[in-house]
């Protein structure tokens, strides 16, 4: 809770700066790249979370990757501040909180779509359908999972649309069980 509260304050501060500079979307992209890098490397996660590693070393690391990640001086400074206050491991949480607030400001909704195979051209149709329904810009985050069997599942915040064959199969199975019990 304490960590969440701290992360929320940092995210709010970053959003305030982003709004004043009119760079809400840019900073969101930059944060996404940093978090993606961290997510892909367990060593980097351990490095940032380790209390043994001094903040100077962590800052040097980010300085080294800043160019590759196309981080603005403002974003780099923001990360330095987090590291100076020993909140480097809260970077991921700050990103999620900032993303939610930024999405609201930018008038967009993130939709998690899981399908058995890449959607291809149907992704655009789905986006337009969802945009018409929610009256907001739709950001689709796709994921391929063979366990879906066929079709797709769509998650918009707490709302889930399940059009997968897995769900159909479960539904048929439940119907058979009900009939068998009756």
């Amino acid at each position: 809770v304490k960590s969440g509260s701290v992360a929320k304050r940092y995210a709010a501060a970053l959003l305030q700066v982003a709004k004043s500079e009119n760079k809400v979307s840019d900073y969101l992209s930059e944060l996404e790249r940093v978090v993606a890098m961290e997510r892909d490397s367990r060593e980097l996660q351990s490095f940032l979370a380790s209390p043994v590693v001094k903040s100077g070393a962590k800052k040097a690391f980010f300085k080294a990757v800043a160019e590759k990640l196309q981080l603005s001086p403002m974003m780099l400074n923001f990360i330095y501040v987090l590291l100076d206050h020993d909140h480097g491991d809260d970077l991921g949480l700050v990103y999620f909180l900032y993303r939610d607030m930024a999405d609201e400001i930018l008038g967009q909704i993130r939709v998690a779509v899981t399908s058995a195979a890449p959607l291809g051209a149907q992704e655009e149709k789905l986006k337009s359908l969802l945009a018409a329904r929610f009256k907001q810009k739709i950001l689709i985050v796709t994921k391929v999972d063979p366990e879906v069997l066929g079709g797709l599942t769509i998650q918009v915040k707490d709302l889930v649309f399940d059009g997968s064959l897995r769900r159909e199969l479960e539904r048929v199975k439940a119907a058979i069980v009900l009939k068998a019990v009756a």
Partner: protein
Amino acid sequence: MKTARSSLRTLFVLALVLAARSALAAEGHGEGHHEEGIPFSMVFSGINFAILAGLLFYFLRKPAKDHFASRATLIRTRIQQAEELKSHAVQKYNEFESRLKSIDRETQDLIANLKHDGELEKRRLVEMAEKQSVQLRETQEKIIGQELRKAKEELKQEAINLASDMAEKLVRENMTPEDQNRVVGQYLDRMEKLA
């Protein structure tokens, strides 16, 4: 008692002296005169015996009387006690005999009662056993029924799971990209219609 004995002794001595004197007198008198009739010695002996008997009677009468009286009392008492004992024994005998008779009757009654109770108990036990047997059978039938239902349900569930697994396997093996596009397209069409 001592006095009586000493008096008796004195009288005895006196009787002997007198008897001797009489005998001597009779002999002296007889030397010159041989007369016919009862001889003097016989008379003397008779007198002597009479005296002795009288003395004995006189002195022994009271103690003998007392002795025999006490003896009679004792014997009477013993006879009385014996009679009492006999009476008591008879009474006891009668009592035991009557009790024996009643015991026979009581025994017979008791046996009859026991037989009756035994019959009742036997009947009760048989009824109870039959009742328990029925209950046990019903319980067993219920358990068997439940187990059967459970087994059927498990069998059905197993069959459904197998069918589901087979269906999933079939879908996995036969699902083509075209099928995937068609399924997604159908779902999007439904979403469009609902919008």
